[in-house]
């Protein structure tokens, strides 16, 4: 059976092998083969496909570190970073953070509507910046319940007034099925980013849960602009619900002249 040594210590037997068995007359390149030979077990089971393979995952999986969402992994559903409140009734919308396979390897949020309400929603804050920006998020439904009764928009204040940019399904990327969910990436390209804090507003208009993962807001550089040539989203006026949710968020903020951190 092959043995994978911890990197720090694998050099020890390998170098011993060079010194004692091969000496230093062998071309150093043999080190790779030697290590494999030392580690190889008697039964390589070459004809049987491995049950799984080993890989690596970074801290934010396949999303950028410089993601301008305040909380890109849904670690703080605290009413500020992510706020799961119905803007008119103030009812708590049922949300659950899920750790399951997702297209970009990030945790997901399951969003339902509160009892007695026709929609459930969650709002997350992200920091705008001058110049072109791209916002994206993956939305999903359980396989077999693939209803498109939802809305997703980034709203904020722009130099010419407040407005919202609707995110649309990516026309190029095909839906992805993972973890029993059919995922579709939604995007919007914004010609000039919102002033400071903006809000991703996701509303589920159906009784079946909506799944959300990998919200990303990034500045579009000259290089990425070439990769993603897009027509900027047209900004539209805020919907009454969006305006209400913004007001609700601000209301929560005003209770937060907290004391010194511990």
């Amino acid at each position, binding site marked *: 059976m092959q043995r994978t040594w911890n990197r720090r210590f694998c050099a020890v037997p390998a170098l011993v092998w060079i010194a004692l068995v091969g000496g230093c007359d062998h071309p150093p*390149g043999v080190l790779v083969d030697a290590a494999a030979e030392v580690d190889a077990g008697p039964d390589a*089971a070459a004809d049987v496909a491995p049950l799984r393979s080993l890989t690596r995952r970074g801290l934010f999986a396949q999303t950028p570190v410089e993601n301008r969402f305040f909380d890109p992994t849904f670690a703080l559903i605290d009413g500020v970073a992510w706020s799961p409140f119905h803007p008119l009734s103030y009812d708590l919308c049922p949300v659950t953070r899920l750790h399951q396979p997702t297209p970009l390897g990030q945790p997901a949020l399951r969003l339902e509507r509160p009892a007695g309400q026709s929609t459930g929603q969650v709002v997350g804050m992200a920091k705008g910046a001058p110049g072109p920006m791209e916002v994206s998020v993956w939305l999903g439904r359980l396989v077999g319940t693939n209803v498109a009764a939802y809305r997703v928009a980034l709203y904020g204040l722009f130099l010419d007034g407040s407005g919202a940019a609707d995110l649309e399904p990516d026309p190029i990327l095909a839906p992805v099925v993972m973890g029993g969910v059919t995922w579709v990436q939604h995007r919007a390209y914004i010609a000039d980013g919102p002033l400071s804090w903006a809000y991703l507003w996701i509303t589920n208009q159906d009784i079946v849960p909506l799944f959300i993962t990998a919200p990303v807001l990034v500045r579009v550089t000259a290089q990425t602009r070439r990769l993603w040539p897009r027509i900027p989203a047209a900004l539209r006026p805020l919907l009454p619900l969006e305006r209400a949710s913004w007001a609700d968020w601000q209301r929560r903020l005003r209770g937060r002249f907290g004391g010194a951190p511990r």
Partner: protein
Amino acid sequence: MNPRLIPRARCWVLAAVTLALVAAGPPVVRAATFDDQTGRLTLDASSWSLPFDSLLELTGDLGAWFGNADDDELSGPEVAALYVEDASGLEGTGYLRMGGDVRTVRLDLDSLVPRFGGRRVEVRFWQRPEGTRISASLQWIALADPGVAESVVVGSFRFQPTGRVTDDGWEEWTSGEVDFLAAGVVPPALLELRDIQPNSHYSYVTHRNDLRVCVDGLEISDVGPALVPDALCTSVDMAEVCGAHGVCALGRCVDSAILFGPTPQDALLKDQYLDRQRFQFQTFEGGRMPQSLMNILAAAIEVARNAAAPILFWGSLRKGVSALRDGHASSPMFGWGLSAQATNFGVCIHQSEADLLPTPGAAPMVFSVEATNPVADKLQVGDVLVEVDGLPVDEWKVALDLRAGHGADPDAFDVTYAPSLIAAAGVFGGRMTFARCERTGPNPTPCTPGEVELIDVDLATLVGEPFWAGDIPGWLADNQSCDYRFLRAVDNPDVKGYSFAGFADEGPIRTLIINGLPNPYGSSGNAWLDAVTDAMDPPPQYLILDQRLGSGGSVTTTDYLMGLLLAEADFDRAEIVPMFERPLDDTVWAALDGCSSQTDCASYWPWILHETSGMDPSLRGVSANVRLAVVNGRDVSGNDFTAKLAQYRSGATRIFAAGVTHGAFGPIVSLPPHFSEISGGSMQLWDSIFVEHPGDPRQVFETGSGVPPDEVVLQRQSDALLGVDTTIEVAKAWLLQE
């Protein structure tokens, strides 16, 4: 390095070094090995392992404990059902599958002391989330005799990801390397696996009982001898005695990984973690002064990037964040233990004027003793703390870099930190030296050097020795809330409580005591509002606003209190302004001013005094003409605002305090944890501008600079011996001067 590039001579040198290493002992093999050809994991034979193949593994010495959401123990069939037989699983013949009603598994590692005592270890395991995930932690607990004292968590931290995952969802997690024993005697009493769903971070998250997580391949590897010596130490010699990785805790060296948590172990994850820390402070921080100091944090992050020792890694982050002067900012917390539980043994000390010592000056002095124990019994009101571990107090604070944890205006540090000095000395096991000048009667004269009595309080002997010997004294839990007041005008058992508001009259002077600005909703908030309203109805002739403990709170209550004390003509508004990453020029201001309402303006927000609280118009400025003395102590956030707004009153106003307020002008928000930290830290996303009159220029951002007193007053030692509150007497004298 490409092996082909190794020259022959260098190769022989390497071989010789290798032989020397081999001669020194067998190579240490660590971590389970993953077989690429089979896709299976093999636990290392030389490690202590727990393959989770059978319930029998967990019986006996490990004393496995299974708990539900209420921390009630589960047993029998419920536990047996947790095992899943799966020969094609990650490792062995099966794994543990928890979640749902089974929230917690605790393992007692005490039986491993003979094997790992004196050694350094690393614990690894694998988990496969099926909707939820495990948070694993190691906890070093000093156990007390039941009924005598409470057990104390010496240190605790959570596991971290290694970055190794499989394509079917298994993830490897590690404790990181850590000495098995704390101070050579306390083993990690618990290895806890907990479903992360019922976590305080998710206060608005709906728990689902159908989520599971699989656990497999737990092993403890011996990675060598303990890194930190089992030695006696003091706060001032710990670098030399305990080494780079050690910290002096209660007089003995302890691995800093136990107290603060290990550093991120994987190089890539460490880089990404630090890059995110830098990015979020650079991008999200709203304070303009903090932004101007961001290069200090950036430099501290680079120190952390190259740091191997936890004390340096987490300490650098802490120091860098504190240097920003954002009084709401805090760095991530990865470990939790002694310092969080440290007490003052029932003794409050505050920065004072030691006017009876031969060399008078500002120094921490005992304000009150409210306990009976070997520490408190040595001290009395008026005793002045002059040294810790042989260093003058100010030098000791510098030597230990205690200011690194203070993120506010640096000028506030000496006053606000003084009550924490006893607890800080206690954590190290320091020897505190107090100076006593016995005097009675009015007009006491300073002591000569020969008259000063020095009192040593050796916390290593009084606390550390019994603690590490397993005999935790019950009085270790003695603690007193310190409120920066020598005396209180109001006699009420809750007078130090956060939500307290109350007043009392002495002749024409009314004193209103508050300790913060609690949320107006709920019974305590209502009681606070009632008390404040009653204090102004009718308005007194003279008023002392005693907010020496000012822990901040709600904008609404801040608006209400100051709305009573300021006329509408006194002050227009404060503007709560985020960072824009573009010049805040006329174009941006026009966009902000043009918002269709006050609720959709990029989180910019004009706080118009008297309007935010919705106070009755008849109450606006009802006490605007009252002669007002504001007495500050430790004032932060909402109480920064009350102090600042008081300066705009048209009525006679004067601020008395020992130092400046924190300068935290804006709301606080928590930062998300990214690396299984206990807390991701916090910061202020906004800064504040004060606009006295409509149309005034909007230019000066206030965060980072506290409100200075009009008159600096410290409690005098001579007054303390007479039972007189110096600050209040000075304030009264000014009020009556009219």
